[in-house]
Structure formats: structure tokens, C-alpha cells
């Protein structure tokens, strides 16, 4: 059974054009009321996306800011309801079988979602209780993972807000892994990490996959990371998959981009998205 099946997935958001609010006709009380009546603009974040991810596969979703990567992850993470199409995780529908899906997944997002005043251990104990794990055993396991990621054990007792972003992200990775997800959703997990930390997290993801056959859905801006980790990648642009395949296959397909040279995923990214190189901002 495939780990993930997405079929014709669509998601549109409706947002107000905030630039209008600065126009003279929308100033003052009457103007504000007029602005409140303006129609929101539809923004198609995910547009008819279909793909399958096999068990144990690391599948990369690569795209510029605002291309729909995080929306796609949120749809699979049961944080958003699709407008159309279906998504299943090991046969469980993300809408109809939310609780079952939630038991099978965990997520590392680009921003470490923690109670920053609490310590790493306190945050991990909270996570353990939510996932039905015995807190003492679970935190011991998380500490082992943290140590494996180059995290000083004693730092786990201090407030998370005093840790660097890289350290916080390592705690987020440990928290996601100690719950034994069969599907790991990693939304730009190494953004903001120094090269060593980035390498440690990447190594760990590969080892976890090797040891436990964990399926990983990874979004990234880092083409080198995608090339290193992913079995297959999909380039997403304006909510659509514009190229999907194994990195080597894609390099072969786009070899014309560097005649006589070695084409990279970065070259393909620039070609298929037609965008400048993305920054570090989340979409």
C-alpha cells in the first residue's frame, strides 16, 4: 500500500487585497466600511495535485515561496480541509479518518512550534502525553535522539527561548521522531541551521528511514539537500506540480540546460519555476 496518495487535490484561499486599504477612497470610516465590503481575491494554493509516495520513500517537494508547498503539507497533516480531491495516508483519508492519520504522522515545520518559556524536556513531556507515550521513557528516548543530533543534554533543562534556532529545530526533529511516525512531514526542517547541524539532521533522517522504513515527505529550498536525501522530487509552482521524477532522471531530462556540463537540481528549479532563487521566508 502506498504511504501517501493524493488525487486531484485542490485548495483555494480567499484573501483581501490589503494594498487597497491605503487608497484614498478606502480611508475614513465610510472608506473602511467600503473596504470591508470588497471581495476577497481567490488564491489557488494547491491546484489539482496528484501523486503517490511509496512506503519508505523520501519524497521532496521543491518550489519557491508561496508555491503551495506548506499548504500541501498542511492538507496531509489534517490541518486544512481540501476543496476538492482526496489524500490518504496508508489508506486513511485525511478528512474522514483524521484521528487515524494523526496517529501515523508527525511534522517538523519551518518554525519550531514550542512553548518557548518551557524547557525542551517540558515540551517533550507534553508531546509524549499527547501521543500516549509514557513521559519518562519517551523523554529518555528523545534525549538519545538529541544527543545523536549533537545537542548537549544539559541544555534540555533550560528554557527553549535561550536556545539558538538550530538547537530548537533539533528539539523539533527529536519531538517528531520519538512518537514513531510512519510518515514524517518535514516542512523546510533545516532552514536556518548551520552546515554541520544541517548535515546531522539529514544524516539522521537517512538513518531513520534505513532502520525503520519511515516515509518522509520533505519540502525544501535547499536543492543540495533534496539531491542528497530524496528518492524522488516534485517541483511545485503556483500550486501545480511542474516536474516530478528521480533526481537523476530529471537531470537527464534537463541535461540540455548545461550542454557538456553537469546539470543540477538548482538549474532545473530555475528552469521549471521561472523564478529567482527563493529566500528563507516561509510561504
Amino acid at each position, binding site marked *: 500500500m502506498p504511504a501517501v496518495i493524493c488525487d486531484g487535490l485542490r485548495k483555494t*484561499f480567499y484573501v483581501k487585497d490589503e494594498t487597497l486599504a491605503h487608497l484614498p477612497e478606502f480611508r475614513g470610516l465610510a472608506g473602511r466600511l467600503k473596504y470591508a465590503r470588497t471581495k476577497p481575491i481567490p488564491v489557488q494554493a494547491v491546484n489539482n495535485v496528484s501523486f503517490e509516495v511509496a512506503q519508505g520513500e523520501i519524497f521532496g517537494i521543491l518550489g519557491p515561496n508561496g508555491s503551495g508547498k506548506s499548504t500541501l503539507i498542511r492538507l496531509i497533516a489534517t490541518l486544512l480541509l481540501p476543496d476538492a480531491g482526496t489524500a490518504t495516508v*496508508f489508506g486513511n483519508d485525511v478528512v474522514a*479518518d483524521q484521528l*487515524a*492519520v494523526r496517529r501515523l504522522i508527525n511534522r517538523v515545520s519551518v518554525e519550531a512550534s514550542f512553548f518557548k518559556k518551557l524547557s525542551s524536556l517540558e515540551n517533550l513531556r507534553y508531546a509524549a502525553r499527547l501521543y500516549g507515550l509514557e513521559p519518562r521513557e519517551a523523554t529518555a528516548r528523545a534525549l538519545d535522539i538529541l544527543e*545523536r543530533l549533537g545537542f548537549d543534554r544539559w541544555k534540555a533543562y533550560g528554557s527553549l527561548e535561550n536556545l539558538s534556532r538550530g538547537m530548537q529545530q533539533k528539539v523539533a526533529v527529536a519531538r517528531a521522531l520519538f512518537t514513531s511516525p510512519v510518515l514524517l512531514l518535514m516542512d523546510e526542517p533545516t532552514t536556518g541551521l548551520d552546515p554541520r547541524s544541517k548535515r546531522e539532521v539529514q544524516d539522521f533522517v537517512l538513518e531513520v528511514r534505513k*532502520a525503520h522504513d519511515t516515509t518522509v515527505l520533505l519540502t525544501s529550498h535547499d536543492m543540495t539537500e533534496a539531491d542528497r536525501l530524496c528518492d524522488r522530487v516534485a517541483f511545485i509552482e503556483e500550486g501545480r506540480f511542474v516536474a516530478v521524477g528521480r533526481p537523476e532522471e530529471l537531470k537527464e531530462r534537463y541535461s540540455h540546460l548545461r550542454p557538456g556540463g553537469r546539470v543540477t537540481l538548482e538549474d532545473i528549479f530555475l528552469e521549471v519555476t521561472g523564478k529567482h532563487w527563493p529566500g528563507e521566508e516561509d510561504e
Partner: protein
Amino acid sequence: MPSPTVGGRKPGGPAAQGGATAASTDRAIAGAVADARKPMSFRAEIAATLGFIERNFYLVKRYFGWELVFLFYNIVNTLTIALIATALPGDKGRMVLFLVVGALLWGYLSVIFHDVSESVAWERWEGTIEYTFMAPIHRATHLFGMCIYAVIYGVIRSSVVLGAVTLFFNLDLAGANLLGALTVLMVASFAFIGLGLMAAVFPLLSTERGAQATHVMEAFLLLVSGAYYAVSALPAWLQPLSVISPATYALRAIRAALLDGATLGQLLPDIGILAITGVVLIPAGLAVFQAGERYAMRTGKLKRSG
């Protein structure tokens, strides 16, 4: 360096044993997939409930300085309100107790209302909303944990304020029906939990204005419930609105128990109204919250930045 482990799916699994076989990992994943469809165990639900209570007390510990400041303000505020009675004509002792009951009960009920209604706004502010909402627990378990914490925290905080007020004023509770007052307090808690659950939906609907709406709702309850005055003191057009506030019945019954020594039988009509309110509002609050959650999931508001 320890080998990577991913938790309880395979205790002592392939990594720990130095190598994985495709068959064993397949079996483990098949087991996890089958387990995911089973109903949550009661033990897991209790553990998750405890998780919310424990987490919130961790936060109290970390924000302890602020807790002390708020507690100090709460005590001084209660004393200040009660001191107004000393300047009024008539039975000063009775008036002091009337105002102390109002301040204490309002303090307790507003803690419950606040903690429950702002649970979403708080998670959004901390940036943990997505993590909490994608946890494999029933929403009722999540909210139940928040409610239990709110009641425990409210009781502790109100007890400290009561202790301070008792030391300051020589309160005469000789003829008071303390058990009756406590019964009313517990039953009123359910009604306020229900109201809090309904108010908790506002931050799901609107990121900024949601929290503002809960404060407006709380202010309205303070105005019409007669916390510091008899409801009859309200303008005639406002008096009918006091009927819809559970705090009106809670204040009336607790004052009757403490000031007049009303028996449990005499308190029963108000206890009955509060109980019915709780029975109606808690499931209604849960239903409203779940509808709000679905709206937030449809519109993309279930995230930290809204």
C-alpha cells in the same frame, strides 16, 4: 553515539538490534497502521488530559513572576472593593461580605472563562496551535484538559485571595452554609466552562478580533450579573439580560448561602438552573468549537499567523 531510535513502534527494533529486515519493518508499519484505526484507549485520553494540565502548570512556574503580580493585584482589587462597604451606611459586615463574595466569585469564574476561552488565542500566540491541533487526540479531550486545569487553578487562586481577605477583614461566617456555597460554586463552574467553550471559538474565527470578542463577552457578563450590586440596581432595560447570565444565579445563591445561611433545599432552584445551563452549554460549546475548528481548517486560519 547511540543508534537512532524512533520510539515505541518497534521496541528493541531493527536499529537497536543492529540491522533491519524488510519483513520486520513491514510488519511493524502494518501494525502501526492497524493500531491507528482502533479507538483511543481511555488511558491515552486521560494521559493527554494530564498533559494539558501539566503543561499549563509548567507555564505557571515559568511565568511565576507574573503570577505573583496578578495575584497581588487580585488581592488588592478584592480588598479595595470590599473597603467600599465600610463607607456605606447600614450593616457593614454584611456589605463587606456581599462585595467580597462578588469579587471572589467573579475572580474565580473569570479565571475559568479566560483560561478556557483563550486556550486557542494563547496557543496561536505561542506558535503551538498547529502542533496541538494535529495531535492524535479527541478535541473534547483537549478542551476537557484545559477546563480541569482552569478549575484547579481558579480554586487555588481564589483560596489564596480568600485567605488574604479573611486576614484583612474580620468576616463573620458563623451562620453561613459553606457546603451549600461550595456546591453552588462547583455547579456554576460547569456553566462557565460551557460559556468559555463557546467563547473559545472566536479566536478560531478571527485571529485578532477573536480575543477581543471574548473580552467583550466577559465584560457583558460582569455588567449584567450583579457582581458588586443587586441586579435591581441595573437600568430597567438591562435587567432582563441578567437572566441569561449563569453568574447571576451563582452570585445570588452563594450570597444566600453565606449571608443568610440558606439551606441546600432553598438553594436548589438556582443550583437547578446552573446545572441545566451547564448540561446545555457544555455539549453546545463543544459542538460550536468543533464547527469553528472545521471553519478554521477550511479557511486556513488554523495556523500561528492566522
